[in-house]
């Protein structure tokens, strides 16, 4: 009823390979964009921005990054937190060193620096895979955190060892610091999120994406068919770290404002993003969004349900949350290894025929 592809005929290969080949999908996508850019900024308040929308957008970028590496290229990474820290510290150093440069450029440069670091830590992937690579990236996580803790240059020799985002404006609107308005920070993150998703989609549907997926599915055959494994793997690490770095920079500068590296970018963060990717769906851009939304909304939803409605103590609800997330991950790994994205896909396939399934 709602979801039809009948009447959608493609007469060129270009129109067949567009992002949303089904017209209904396309319009829904435009509608989401319009609402996100033109409606939400006017109704947003601090609570919605800080509790839901900012973390959702930022984690979505990080999930897209990790999904490119793990979901598309098949290289498991547990270093996401460390790479986010690289983005955050790169952004901090750039913000303090060049106060007059636009925040857009700082964030993108921070992503670029993270991409470089990601390639360095991706080098072991040329020799090792699977669990062993996961351990190697885990080493990256611990090494990077140690580095940002131990070398005072990174936090500009501040006494607390923390980094604090100075106030910076974009087009006259403050995006960092305590005076930034919810709508501005939201829009700032939204721009990065939308562009990241677009770039990720373009990369994954073309030659680059196919060589990543070929490496993921069967690396020997990929090499014999002409995929350069070195280039494919390192480019995946670079692109992935670029997005993760942007997410880290936004997380620090726009969302938190002040960061203590061991708290904000610990191994927990690596796992959180990995869970988002697994629950959302490996190898799917939509899955990155779904996973981020799910894990950002879950604690909020549970808190509303448990504390506000049921009147349970906060700590019990917080513990419940861990239990539920753990159970869900086991559930998804067993029942639907392709995550929410696959459920969505199945629902669409059913909807195509509904209500007359024959």
């Amino acid at each position: 009823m709602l979801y039809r592809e009948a009447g959608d005929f493609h007469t060129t290969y270009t129109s067949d390979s567009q992002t949303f080949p089904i017209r209904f999908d396309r319009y829904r996508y435009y509608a989401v964009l319009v609402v996100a850019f033109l409606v939400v900024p006017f109704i947003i308040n601090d609570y919605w921005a800080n509790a839901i929308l900012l973390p959702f957008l930022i984690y979505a970028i990080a999930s897209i990054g990790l999904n490119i590496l793990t979901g598309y290229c098949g290289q498991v990474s547990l270093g996401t937190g460390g790479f986010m820290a690289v983005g955050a510290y790169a952004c901090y150093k750039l913000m303090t060193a060049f106060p007059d440069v636009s925040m857009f450029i700082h964030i993108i440069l921070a992503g670029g620096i993270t991409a470089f670091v990601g390639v360095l830590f991706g080098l072991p992937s040329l020799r090792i895979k699977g669990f062993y690579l996961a351990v190697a990236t885990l080493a990256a996580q611990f090494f990077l955190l140690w580095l940002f803790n131990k070398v005072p240059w990174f936090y500009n020799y501040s006494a607390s060892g923390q980094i604090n985002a100075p106030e910076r404006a974009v087009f006259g609107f403050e995006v960092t610091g305590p005076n930034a308005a919810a709508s501005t920070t939201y829009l700032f993150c939204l721009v990065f999120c939308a562009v990241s998703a677009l770039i990720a989609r373009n990369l994954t549907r073309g030659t680059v994406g196919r060589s990543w997926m070929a490496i993921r599915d069967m690396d020997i055959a990929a090499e014999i068919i002409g995929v350069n494994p070195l280039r494919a793997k390192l480019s995946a690490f670079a692109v992935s770290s670029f997005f993760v770095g942007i997410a880290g920079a936004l997380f620090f500068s726009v969302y938190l404002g002040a960061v203590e590296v061991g708290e904000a970018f610990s191994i927990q963060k690596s796992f959180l993003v990995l869970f988002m990717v697994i629950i959302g769906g490996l190898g799917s851009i939509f899955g990155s969004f779904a996973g981020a939304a799910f894990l950002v909304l879950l604690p909020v939803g549970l808190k509303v349900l448990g504390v506000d409605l049921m009147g349970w103590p906060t700590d019990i609800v917080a513990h419940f949350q861990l239990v539920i997330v753990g159970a869900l991950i086991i559930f998804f790994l067993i029942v639907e290894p392709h995550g929410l994205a696959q459920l969505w896909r199945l629902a669409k396939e059913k909807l195509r025929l509904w209500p007359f399934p024959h």
Partner: protein
Amino acid sequence: MLDASEGYTTADGRKIGGVVMEMKNITLRFGGVKAITDISFDIREGEIRAIIGPNGAGKSSMLNVMSGFYVPQEGEVWFRGKPRPQMKPYEVARQGIARTFQNIALFEGMSVLDNVMTGRLTHMRTGMFSQALWKGRAEAEETANREIAEKIIDFLEIQAIRKTPVARLPYGLKKRVELARALAAEPKLLLLDEPMAGMNVEEKEDMSRFILDVNDEFGTTIALIEHDMGVVMDLSDRVVVMDYGKKIGDGTPDEVRNNQEVIDAYLGVEHD
């Protein structure tokens, strides 16, 4: 024997050209085991060349040497008139050699179309940044290559499954998709590792037809390994016979069929 520069004409009247690939005294060892001992033969433009032999004769090793996956300890591989330096498998692919595998090696998580498009990879030139932008060069390249991929999809009659994930396909179709992926590279030399293994008679007939059609239509030079004698004798123009890593026969199917050594290798010899 044949002259190195000129070709010959097959029984069915096809013109066979000069030498595309020549194996010169190839020896391949794995530790103490000699998989291939001092084998030489050539493959000529436009011909269907078969490598046959009993199990463990070293046929697949030979194919792996040809595709650059194994590096022989001795001997040279000449490709298109030049000795091929030691190179990585993906560089060999870029030279115009494509292959299929004995146990299907498709990208299971991707659709048929994506698999075939991956075969076009060696022809894709746009860099990462134009890919990220998509509109413009990357899209134009994608469309141009899609046209070629679709031609091959048409040719192998797999249009109906082009958007199906490969993991969902039955065995026979997977073999065909793998052939499509190899063909998509528009190879100068196509290596087929047991294209008919595990197929029933009907599927074998289909596959044989496709191999002949590919050779006929695109003029692709094909080297294949196959166990089914009937198929080999019908398809190929010339046959190399291997046994225990050595070449024991080389020639047209008829010559090979009447070669005493070959008969001995296949039927066994009476020891007294």
